[in-house]
């Protein structure tokens, strides 16, 4: 019972941060700030979702050691977590770089050192 509450807690945190990502996507003014909301809040939320899956499957394996597919599920979720942690920032970086290359300027920006380096005002 306490364990179920713990799982629900993890899932609520996850949904909360994924929801914040969606709100940020609507509220922020340009592509860079939207990337902040759309990639980072969702990464953080999804981490908690994988924690919930790992806790659940680890607990199920602990209570029925015969069913090794629960251990397998836990390990595969860990592999998915590592993949998310590596690919999500890389994808955000690729989008931001492409946006800056085609000349989208950050709105309301107080400094832009990259524009200085690339030579356009």
């Amino acid at each position, binding site marked *: 019972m306490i364990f179920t509450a713990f799982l629900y807690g993890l899932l609520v945190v996850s949904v909360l941060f994924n929801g914040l990502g969606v*709100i940020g996507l609507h509220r922020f003014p340009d592509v860079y700030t939207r990337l902040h909301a759309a990639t980072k809040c969702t990464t953080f939320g999804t981490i908690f979702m994988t924690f919930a899956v790992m806790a659940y499957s680890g607990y199920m394996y602990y209570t029925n050691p015969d069913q090794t597919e629960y251990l*397998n599920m836990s390990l595969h979720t860990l*592999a998915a977590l590592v993949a998310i942690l590596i690919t999500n920032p890389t994808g955000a970086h690729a989008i*931001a770089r492409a946006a800056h290359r085609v000349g989208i300027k950050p709105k309301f920006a107080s400094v832009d050192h990259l524009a200085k380096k690339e030579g356009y005002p």
Partner: protein
Amino acid sequence: MDESKAFVSTFLLALFVYLFLTLAAGRSMIEGSILWSVEELVLGISIALIVGAVGSSILCRSGNYRMLNPLRWLIILVYCVPLFVEMVKANMDMAYRVITGKIDPGIVRISPKLKTDLGITALANSITLTPGTLTVDVDDETGDLFIHWINVGKNPTKTIAGNFLPWIRRFAE
């Protein structure tokens, strides 16, 4: 000598990934006492041999074998803890900014002075993972990073990368 070293390290990495993904996947844990069945091990070793033959020239392109040291992998695991703490702190800040909409964005240049590709990649990904900062571009010659910062402050190199740099120097340099 160098080629066989590259082959062996690629083979071991591929075998490790295969064994990790198939751990406890079959019924061998119930029938016998070992984690993998013999068929699984044979298949894993043959696939790892193929991967080692094809991929060793790509994986070990830099010719530097410092990552073979298991201590460095241990440090990467330990590094996950401060990274996660930073993510929690920064996500609270991000939630505040999403709700109130108070932002002061800008692109700043930081010079972490890391020498290896792995170090720069790890730092860029760590910076992107902590909300409020997003790596936009990298200067290939000097290793400087261009960071989109949602709330521009003073002394960007220390504020953004200060907590990660000692850890990344420990495992990547």
